[in-house]
């Protein structure tokens, strides 16, 4: 499906969404409370079949976080990027690990480095950093006086 067709279809599913232009892939901005039902529709609808979550990351904009999901359909070969803005002081978002199992690890990584709480995640622990590590190292305001100099 072409990006223009995807755009029409997605607007039909949830009129609240907005789009970002300019990239190769269609960028969809979804309100974070609508995200779970929206991506469930992407996965289960026979017209979209987004069965592959190939990237899940977080961006720190200093004023807020954006959680970025990259989806692909192995049947139709179309890709979309879903972005959800969340609060930075109390970062919480519903897990998608019950839809895509791979999100279990990806969400643990985001939790490890940004401290985003994924609600109803089965096993939200640190993944890469040591278990006794304190702080969220990829946040823009992270400070480590031993290893880092302030720029």
């Amino acid at each position: 499906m072409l990006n223009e067709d995807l755009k029409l279809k997605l607007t039909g599913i949830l009129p609240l969404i907005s789009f970002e232009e300019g990239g190769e892939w269609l960028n969809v901005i979804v309100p974070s409370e609508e995200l779970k039902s929206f991506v469930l529709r992407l996965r289960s609808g026979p017209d979209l079949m987004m069965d592959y979550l190939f990237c899940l990351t977080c961006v720190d904009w200093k004023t807020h976080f954006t959680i970025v999901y990259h989806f692909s359909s192995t049947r139709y070969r179309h890709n979309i990027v879903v972005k959800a803005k969340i609060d930075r002081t109390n970062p919480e978002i519903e897990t998608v690990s019950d839809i895509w199992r791979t999100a279990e690890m990806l969400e643990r990584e985001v939790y490890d480095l940004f401290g985003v709480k994924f609600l109803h995640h089965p096993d939200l622990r640190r993944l890469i950093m040591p278990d006794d590590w304190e702080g969220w190292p990829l946040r823009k305001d992270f400070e480590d006086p031993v290893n880092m100099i302030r720029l």
Partner: protein
Amino acid sequence: MGVIEKMDKADFPGKIHETAGGGIVLSKLDDVINWARSNSLWPLTFATSCCGIEMMSVASAKYDFSRFGFEVARATPRQADVIIIAGTIVNKMAPVLRRLYDQMADPKYVIAMGACAISGGPFFYNTYSVVKGADHVIPVDVYIPGCPPRPEALLHALITLQGKIKAGLTREQIKESSYLNP
């Protein structure tokens, strides 16, 4: 019956007295040991990032460090003589590197290959996770700058290490006699 100070082919340390049926070799045992040792250094197959690709290139046909006696790359530190730190050492890797070094049998040598192994790297120095130079973890004999160093630079470092071993001095003796402490 002449005395040849240096053979034309090899840089054998000592004197060779040529006789009709062969020859007599005079040398110090330490020199012979160092000479033999420096021409058969077994590197550990250890690489933590992109410098490792360059190291593999030096090991393979085009640059071929077996010409200098480095061909027997070992996957166990217990059989290796030299560890080439090819890549970034992160805080989680540091204890592993230390253990690898401790498991190597004496005499053992260390080459720090590339900017990451020397100082933490051109990109990764200002992070929570990177060791700012592998010499914080284990002592280093030869440093090669570069990101990554050219294969020729690694060969040069290997030959420099051989020269260091042939000189017969320990790391500490070389440091004491260096130009910094005349």
